[in-house]
């Protein structure tokens, strides 16, 4: 490891490396249409379809606001899982990670860049959804509530970054795409992100507690005011523990190598 040399550099040099790496990571992903288009456009298209175009009334739920919260979760999961999972797997296969590891760049910058990229993409998705919701779905949300929703969703990317990271350490190359999709889509549907859970059989409604995305959706639905009596501490704990669990698993994989 060469990190000793680097950590002796002035702090501003170090932070410049972090930011540059993050900036180029973002640019690179933006220039990868196979990544950027689905992660940015899919949640928006689904939201417009289910929340705005298709008719229906859900009792005292406000459909447009409810789905803004759940598609927001869906939207931030994409960049986190794919950015980390698929990105890492591809870069391990191509040897790019190994090259980075021997370069005089701190390993932290590599992960920081991926997290920053996930947050940026997540933010863009949430902004796109919010424009659709407020502009066309008649959703009324106060600015402070909206900022809180954005904050919850962005912090909620952490467990998915961790899961993505772990998947990226398990398999190499294109296999990761398949695995991530196998996790991403069922988890989204079964946590009620596409259509609300009350449309599902009872046992699936109860089983939803095993998905971190369900816990994040509870937080965002609570923030947007669509469900009450949300046990915020409980859901936050689940998300933090999930992050810790998958980070540890990933670290075991990386070190075991």
């Amino acid at each position, binding site marked *: 490891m060469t990190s000793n040399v680097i950590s002796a550099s002035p702090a501003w040099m170090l932070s410049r490396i972090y930011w540059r790496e993050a900036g180029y990571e973002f640019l690179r992903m933006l220039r990868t249409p196979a990544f950027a288009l689905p992660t940015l456009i899919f949640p928006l298209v689904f939201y417009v379809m289910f929340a705005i175009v298709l008719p229906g009334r859900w009792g005292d739920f406000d459909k447009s606001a409810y789905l803004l919260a759940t598609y927001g979760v869906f939207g931030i999961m994409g960049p986190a899982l794919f950015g980390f999972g698929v990105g890492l797997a591809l870069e391990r296969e191509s040897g790019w990670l190994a090259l980075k590891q021997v370069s005089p760049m701190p390993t932290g910058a590599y992960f920081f860049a991926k997290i920053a990229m996930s947050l940026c993409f997540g933010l863009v998705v949430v902004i796109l959804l919010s424009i659709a919701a407020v502009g066309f779905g008649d959703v009324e949300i106060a600015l402070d509530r909206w900022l809180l929703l954005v904050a919850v969703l962005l912090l909620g990317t952490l467990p998915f970054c961790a899961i993505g990271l772990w998947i990226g350490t398990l398999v190499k190359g294109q296999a990761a795409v398949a695995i991530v999709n196998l996790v991403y889509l069922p988890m989204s549907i079964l946590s009620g992100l596409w259509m609300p859970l009350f449309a599902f059989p009872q046992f699936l409604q109860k089983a939803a507690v095993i998905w971190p995305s369900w816990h994040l959706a509870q937080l965002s639905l609570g923030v947007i005011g669509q469900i009450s009596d949300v046990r915020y501490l409980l859901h936050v704990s689940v998300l933090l523990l999930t992050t*810790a669990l998958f980070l540890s698993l990933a670290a075991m994989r990386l070190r075991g190598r």
Partner: protein
Amino acid sequence: MRPLPLIVVGCAFALAALMLMSIPPQPPAPGKPATTPSPSEFVISKARVFDGETTWPRADVRIKDGLITAIAEQLEWPSGLAVVDGSGKTLLPGLIDAHVHSWGEARQQMLRFGVTTALDMFSDPAQLPGFRRDRASLAATDRADIWGAGALITARGGHGTQFGMALETFDDAAQAQALVESRIAQGSDFIKFVVDDGHAYGEGHELPTLDSTRITALLAATRAAKTMAVAHVAQVDTAVAMLRAGADGLVHVFSDRQANQQEIAVMAETGGWVIPTLSVISGLSGESVGPALGDDPAIARLLDAAQRDSLRATYPPQFQNAKHLPNALANVAALRRAGVDILAGTDAGNPGTAHGASLHGELELLVRAGLSASDALRAATALPATHFGLADRGRIAVGLRADLLLVEGDPTTDIRVTRQIVTIWKNGAVVARKPAPSAVSNVQASPALAAIDSPFSGKALRTTQGQHWAPSIDAFVGGKSTAVLTLESEGDTSFMRATGAVATGTVYPWAGAALLPGDPPMSAVDASQLTELSFRLRGDGRELLLMLLTGENNQAPAMQRFSSTRDWQTHRFKLADFQGADATRLRAIAITASLPAGEFAFELDDFELQ
């Protein structure tokens, strides 16, 4: 690294524990406002069943997932299925009110009274897509379904333009096709047009209306668009003319006079139908059935504040004419004898009516006009469904929507029994019938009003107690009348002068002066401890109106007329004489000039309310 596996195992256990803790005991589901959970499949057994056309002395009806799945004198069903005992009761199709103006809480108000569907004859067209969406659903709901005309079609300045809503008028026959197409594009289920020159309401109420060129063009356009055209008429002559010209039906019965045999026969030959709206005509006749309906205990317990006020509200005296109701009743009887289909509609939304409640009053009026109780029930179930093409409702038959009404007793012999509602089902789900708490609780006690006197001795147009006088004009209903108030003096007395002009352009134009006793202005005060209103007034000899604005904000004012004199004269009025006023919620007292149009001036002094 040692600690990592430990962290993994620790996290996994903690996660499992937290996940178990977060299993929701009752996963969140959409609340069903104003409906209580009811089984999706059940049988209503042993009830007398009026199926929209005929009466079964005893039958079983099975319902599943919002639809009627079976009806027979004796059904078999698996044990375990929920059963509603209907013995001694009568099951009816959900009622249809064939003439309403729906806004605000109207749809919830209707459903509480068993009106599961209504035909809207003019309201905000922006509601139409929502009406369409909702009526296609079989989900439990707290509101009635609506088919609507959207915006009506009338001449510039004609009936329908007085409500202050933006309305594209029909000024040139060449517009007909485009107008019909634009209404259909807005979502209108049928076209309603107005042929009413105001003549039926007496002199001074003349209004512009559609001429025969435009009517012919309009009816050609509706035929070409394969849509129904229904006509608002008030007179026998126009009624005959419209049905002969090809209108599908009339949304009011004519009441200017009794039609003769030949006129009735001509109308019957056209196959057209009539929605009499006797409820609103009783109000135009000065003998509104609204207050009595509101006092019927079976109705009263389900009324919210707005409905109660609306039942008590009256038309301005200059619109009341005692001939309307007798003429209307006689015409309905003659139409029925000639075989014309009569459809029950209330015109709810107007003074003297309330959504839902008034349909029960309308049924009673139809029986009073000479229909049998069963005919009256047909008029509110199968007939409107047939004539307006509501294929999924209006009768109790297999495959139709389970919009049902269970009443105690036999409405086919006593029509007033429709009010004895035991259960209402909409889309197969039981409807909770309590008026919305918000609707009840907004009847907060208003602050009590102490006696007022206004000698106009100060420098401002205020009462001694500090309340303001303000000009009162018809601008907010689209009028152009003007009024100016000034403080004047003559020798050692001072008084208020009101001058201005009443302009035509709206149906009830007015201009004058108003005293707003509440703070903030137009808020309600309780004047029930006060009894008499007096003032000195001199003017130009015109007839003036003394109006009390009370109750809900949009309630029609209660009023009395009096003549101004060229010399000062003292006028006294008892508050109790203002028919329809709710003195516990007084918002404004106004003295105004109305029709005929033209300039006016009056001077007011020593105004007292005590």
